[in-house]
């Protein structure tokens, strides 16, 4: 059998090739490029929401976060016991669960359950406000650097590198030992310090997201319609860069809560007079071997809260990430 190829022109072994036509009824010709008109319009956010609603990870984390937020806003709804040190009875020291005190007592004789409930607020406040600050500050810096590029970008990139060289906890420790901060240890000092060392990550993410979008055809199209450069940043570039920022901000919220409790745990975060999980864990550390419960419960509350934000971030990433969406 001589192989046949049309380019060689050797028509030595001609074969019969059947001309087949499919049944028209089985292969009807449809109109070219018809617009579907039956379904309801759906935006990208709508699609993302539809995806999210189906994800168990999202549902679980959203419910848990909602619960944590409600507890931090209205702790009185969940416990009527005064958990402050003054109200604690030393006679209850390291006591086990009792009626009305389901989780037992701390070494100072405070009700563990009430302390866990009332400690929620400082964690949530620090996490939330640090995240807001970081997103605003880091977001603006990152967006400007990414969008305008040039020397501004170079300077800002180096600046973020400098802050990256000082990890969050390390930087916060150095700052918190300064006399001026040591003297004013409140939730807001902590927020300030965490913003100072926490913004580079969001800045970097925003910068990357903005760079990815800034040269998209729809931005060029807007520019050639006469939309000003700054306006197209606000109207087109930023809205399309939001997804990764939201994801990272959600996860960071968890990270900042950890940072607050870590600093408090190290004794340089919130002062002992402020109720916080970190302080409680610190206080319970000494009697860990004899009475682990006062350490365990705030630790569980802290872990569940942080885990909820990280799970939410993960679920959001799956729903919002354009790469994942394409697949």
């Amino acid at each position, binding site marked *: 059998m001589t192989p046949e190829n049309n380019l060689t022109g050797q028509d030595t072994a001609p074969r019969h090739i059947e001309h087949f036509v499919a049944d028209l009824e089985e292969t009807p010709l449809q109109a070219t490029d018809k617009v579907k008109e039956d379904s309801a319009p759906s935006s990208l956010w709508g699609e993302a929401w539809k995806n999210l609603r189906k994800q168990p990870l999202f549902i679980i984390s959203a419910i848990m976060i909602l619960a944590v937020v409600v507890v931090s806003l209205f702790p009185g709804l969940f416990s009527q016991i005064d958990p402050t040190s003054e109200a604690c009875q030393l006679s209850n020291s390291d006591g086990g669960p009792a009626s009305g005190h389901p989780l037992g007592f701390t070494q100072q004789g405070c009700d563990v359950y009430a302390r866990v409930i009332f400690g929620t607020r400082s964690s949530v406040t620090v996490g939330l406000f640090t995240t807001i600050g970081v997103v605003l500050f880091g977001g603006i810096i990152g967006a400007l650097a990414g969008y305008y590029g040039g020397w501004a970008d170079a300077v800002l990139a*180096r*600046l973020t*590198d*400098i*802050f*990256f*060289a*000082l*990890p969050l*906890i*390390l930087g916060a*420790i*150095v*700052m*918190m*030992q*300064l*006399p*001026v901060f040591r*003297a004013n240890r409140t939730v807001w000092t902590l927020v300030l310090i965490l913003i100072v060392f926490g913004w580079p990550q969001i800045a970097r993410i925003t910068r990357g997201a903005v760079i990815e979008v800034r040269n998209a055809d729809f931005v060029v199209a807007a520019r050639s319609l006469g939309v000003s450069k700054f306006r197209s940043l606000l109207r087109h570039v930023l809205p399309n860069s939001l997804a990764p920022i939201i994801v990272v901000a959600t996860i960071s919220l*968890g990270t900042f809560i*950890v940072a607050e*409790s*870590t600093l408090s*745990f*190290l*004794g*340089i975060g919130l002062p002992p007079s402020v109720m916080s999980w970190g302080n409680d*864990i610190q206080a319970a*550390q000494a009697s*860990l*071997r004899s009475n*682990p419960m006062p*350490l365990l419960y705030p*630790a569980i509350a*802290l*872990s569940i809260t*942080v*885990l*909820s934000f*990280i*799970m939410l971030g*993960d679920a959001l990433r799956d729903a919002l990430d354009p790469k994942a969406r394409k*697949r």
Partner: protein
Amino acid sequence: MATYILKRFLQLIPVFLGATLLVYFLVFSLPGDPIAALFGDKPVNEAVAAKLRAQYNLDQPFIVQYLLYLKSIFTFDLGQDFSGRPIAAVLGEVFPVTARLAVMALIFEAVFGIAFGLVAGLRKGKLFDGTVLIASLIVIGIPIFVLGFILQFFIGVQLGWAKPTVSAAATVQDLILPAIVLGLASFAYVLRLTRTSVIENMNADYVRTATAKGLSRFRVINVHILRNSLIPVVTFLGADLGTLMGGAIVTEGIFNVPGVGNRLYRAVLSGEGPTVVSIVTVLVLIYCLSNLLVDLLYAWLDPRIRYDS
């Protein structure tokens, strides 16, 4: 290649200078007298204070102070700590311990992270993958000091499988449990990074082409999927070495490891500004060097970087 490395090296210089300047500024120039703070609640002894000020050049303009400080860093003449010991000697004592701890943590997270990540990625969507993913989220979600206490309490105290605290010598055996705690969060990151990277590469065109060439599945996974997936993972691991050393404060505190973090923490609590600055400077230096290491690794792993410049 040489230009690339040189370029990366030059880029690190402003980072190092900037970070140390920042720390120096924070410790010595913000309101509040660091020397006065050294005396704590005791009355300030003016003679000693003046001597200390001269020792740290605090009577000089800020930028001169900083430059003199840099000089002292590079000549290892770091002055003395609160108890009168040379800081350089203190650093020489604590850094090897933390380095050992960090390297052990790194080995732990690399070996287990890559192995679990590879298997999870190859079995995307299966039971193993789902379990590992949820478990890694939990590990990331639980703060390191909580994890530390839990492991110390259950494995160290209750079960007695490992020593709950570390001896002064901080031997490899002593450090197993702390290293696992220190590396656990990064382990979860390595696992997830490997998994994502493996999944991405499994869908890559060149992997399909490799299969179409008639290669065995083993070869496709080893030579094509794993090799390419390791690029981002190895770079993460390199950068993590610096982070682990700087981030060992909590772990060292829980297990009482006589390392950098422990010393730094005590310096912070007692307000020893100079010691804090020295330790942080060395940590920044390690961060910069491990970043350079990452760049070298990256160039070694990815020929596209190696030849571009």
